């Protein structure tokens, strides 16, 4: 009996101990001590140069470039303190021109980095790590990159052309395969990104290397020249530090020219876009025209976009040079129809126009218009204008395009005030609220004001009643459009599955438009702003 009792006691103690340990586990804080969230910096470079020479044994090094640029500047040194030059070209690598062997590259980094740090420490300043591996090879990086990519838009380009005094050859070059040299082809300048891609290819450096080597070198040279000329002391050059181009705050500070003068690249003012099919058997004869041509105002479109690359995504040629009617290899077999009409692309005509509709001044109406890829003929004709009556056989395409563009009309206004009811009293549903006194005319006038400066809207809203179709939808554009109750009645009608009932229709239309346009007052959640509560 004695043996049994002691066993029971032991078991009891054991269980209690387990429960206590289980519940007090969290008290000790077994988790790692969480460090502060990493710093967000634009100058973070991850040094993993040894990756190309084998597997990495340590985590890549987190290197803050601007920090070092500042430190080097303090010592009155410049980039050559770390970057060697070859033939006047600076190597972006650290203290070497080429990656030779694993041991050599490692030694360069270890010895040179730490030596400099030791020297700085000796001078009594703060410096980087000198011996502990983990301080550079951070497993959990203490700084994380929040680099923004800078867009070299037309404003920046203009500032550069001014600084370079319109000498395009300063930056633009092309590569001669035969002579294996760079040369400047006048009149054929294009975007850097047409050739310099994401990765370095055989003979072609990546866009990252290209932009850093060319841009920063030029900026440095300009700064050096400015320093020598006392009168040009105030003249600034572009950034040479990472944050200058890549930190969000600095990007905001870059001066933007509002009305950039037109780039001088011999671009056309108007273009006649025609889908043609050449006669292979008789190449000398005029090709068959497949569809009414589209007169394209190239000059105006230049104003609407920040870069040429938005449309000219591969080179500064005509679209049809790569995108033929049936598609060809140069255009990745994208047919001209797709190139112009594809709705989800940001460089097709329809795609770009579609994305304009998501602006807040347009989205109030356009967000609720379903995306239909098949359009009615009346929609096609707005771009593919009929050729004018006069004999046009002898006209050059450009002249014809100009004529057709001139004959286009813009709808800037809608019906007269007396045709637009001032207020509409909506009392069909009241049982809890008073009727709504809907300020109809004011809203119509507001919509008209929103499209006052929008040429796109003014052209495509081809009729006076088009703007009414925002709310008076699914019906033709007329002076007397149907009332809401003509179509919206009791909800959940099996014959009209997608049609909301009257209450839902009113609220969905009103809430939807207000939300898309960013209208804060009236607030959807504050019912009495639109209809007062009924006094019982």
């Amino acid at each position, binding site marked *: 009996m004695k043996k049994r009792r002691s066993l029971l006691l032991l078991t009891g103690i054991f269980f209690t101990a387990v429960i206590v340990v289980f519940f007090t586990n969290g008290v000790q804080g077994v988790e790692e001590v969480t460090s502060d969230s990493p710093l967000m910096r634009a100058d973070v470079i991850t040094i993993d140069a040894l990756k190309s020479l084998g597997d990495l044994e340590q985590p890549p090094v987190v290197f803050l470039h601007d920090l070092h640029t500042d430190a080097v500047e303090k010592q009155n040194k410049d980039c050559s303190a770390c970057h060697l030059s070859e033939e006047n070209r600076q190597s972006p690598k650290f203290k070497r021109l080429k990656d030779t062997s694993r041991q050599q590259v490692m030694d360069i980094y270890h010895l040179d980095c730490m030596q400099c740090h030791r020297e700085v420490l000796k001078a009594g300043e703060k410096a980087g790590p000198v011996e502990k591996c983990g301080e550079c090879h951070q497993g959990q990086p203490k700084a994380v990159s929040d680099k923004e990519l800078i867009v070299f838009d037309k404003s920046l380009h203009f500032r550069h052309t001014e600084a370079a005094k319109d000498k395009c050859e300063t930056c633009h070059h092309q590569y001669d395969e035969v002579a294996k040299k760079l040369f400047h082809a006048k009149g054929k300048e294009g975007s850097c990104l047409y050739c310099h891609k994401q990765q370095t290819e055989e003979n072609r450096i990546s866009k990252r290397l290209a932009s850093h080597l060319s841009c920063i070198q030029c900026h440095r040279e300009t700064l050096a020249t400015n320093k020598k000329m006392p009168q040009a002391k105030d003249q600034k050059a572009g950034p040479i530090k990472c944050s200058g181009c890549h930190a969000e705050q600095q990007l905001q500070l870059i001066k933007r020219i509002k009305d950039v003068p037109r780039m001088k690249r011999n671009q056309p003012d108007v273009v006649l876009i025609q889908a043609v099919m050449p006669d292979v058997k008789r190449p000398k004869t005029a090709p068959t025209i497949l569809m009414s041509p589209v007169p394209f105002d190239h000059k105006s479109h230049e104003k609407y976009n920040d870069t040429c690359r938005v449309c000219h995504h591969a080179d500064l040629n005509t679209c049809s040079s790569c995108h033929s009617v049936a598609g060809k290899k140069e255009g990745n077999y994208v047919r001209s129809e797709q190139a112009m009409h594809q709705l989800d692309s940001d460089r097709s005509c329809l795609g770009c126009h579609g994305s304009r509709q998501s602006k807040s001044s347009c989205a109030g109406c356009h967000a609720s218009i379903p995306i239909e890829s098949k359009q009615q003929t009346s929609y096609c004709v707005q771009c593919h204008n009929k050729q004018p009556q006069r004999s046009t056989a002898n006209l050059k395409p450009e002249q014809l395009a100009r004529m057709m563009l001139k004959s286009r009309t813009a709808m800037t206004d809608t019906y007269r005030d007396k045709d637009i009811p001032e207020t509409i009293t909506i009392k069909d549903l009241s049982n809890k609220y008073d009727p709504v006194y809907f300020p109809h005319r004011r809203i119509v006038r507001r919509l008209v004001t929103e499209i006052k400066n929008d040429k796109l809207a003014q052209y495509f809203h081809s009729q006076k009643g088009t703007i009414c179709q925002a709310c008076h939808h699914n019906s033709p554009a007329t002076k007397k459009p149907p009332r809401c109750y003509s179509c919206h009645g009791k909800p959940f009608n*099996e014959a009209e599955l997608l049609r909301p009932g009257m209450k839902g229709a009113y609220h969905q239309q009103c809430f939807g438009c207000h939300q898309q346009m960013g209208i804060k007052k009236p607030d959807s959640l504050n019912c009495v702003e639109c209809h007062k509560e009924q006094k019982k």
Partner: protein
Amino acid sequence: MSVSRRKFLGWLTAAGLSGSAFGKVAHAATTKHFEGHPDSLGVLYDNTKCIGCRTCEAACNNVNDLPPPDRPFDDLSVLDNKRRTDPKKYMVINKYAGSVNVKTPLFARTGCNHCLEPACASSCFVRAYTKTESGAVTYDSSVCVGCRYCMLACPFNIPTFEYDAAFTPRIRKCTMCYDTRLVKGELPGCVEACPSESFTFGKRTDLLRIARERIRRYPGRYLDHIYGENEMGGTSWLYLSGVPFRKIGMREDLGITPAPQFTSSALAAVPMVVGTWPLLLMGIYAMSKRKDKIAKEEKEQALAEVTAQVKAEADQKVSEAWKKASQEKEKAIEAAVKQALEAAADVETEENS
């Protein structure tokens, strides 16, 4: 009685073999995919239209005669905390942060989804839950025993228990206004009250069609998934959202197997086990017992025979011995008599001489 190991293992094998023989039948109940009663009704909740005004909650409270809430329904600060259903709130609206595409906050409705094959009904052993033909899952408190298995079973954690009512607690959940509205041909309270028609009511098949058409027309606005179309075998309450459903607090890990299917094979085996195993095992036991009995009887009989035989032999021996003994006795008497006579004769002769 003590059972030998061999016997026990023998019984076990017999039972197991009989089980596997019937095993295939157990799945018969789950090979069909139940898509709902024909013309069953449902509700489609469209998250992109909901503005979080809580009018639906107020209507639910009103229609079901629930007690007034602690904070009024137009107090939208209630949405700052995540709530779940409770006996006084059959349906709650919760607020979630907006996403990259949608700057305004998002809302989601939580309440009974009226599954096509409800887990609650499947777990209830007193049949308190009924999946009605209209699609609503209703609850009968008169038969409920308060075991709360349904609360465990529901994958959406919906049935709530009246813990405060100690003697007559009931399970409370959304009934799709079955008794109060649907049987009268009216719309459920929340559906009727919503100002922006975020709830669409109708036949489940029609709702699926509406949902697909909305997704087709506004691909940028909706996620291409109708929640409830297949989740847990399908629910009557369907959801459309502009963001992934986990961002609005809805479980994405439920799978498409209806809840009853998880247990139907085990449950279907119960009648078989209860029916055949006792008979089988009792039969084996009876047979083996009888076998023992017969063996015993035979043994006794054999024993009896041998005993009788031995006894007969013994008797015979005894009687022979007795006979022999008596014969010898007679002989001895005769001899003695003869001797006596001779002796007497001798004496006589002697006297005569």
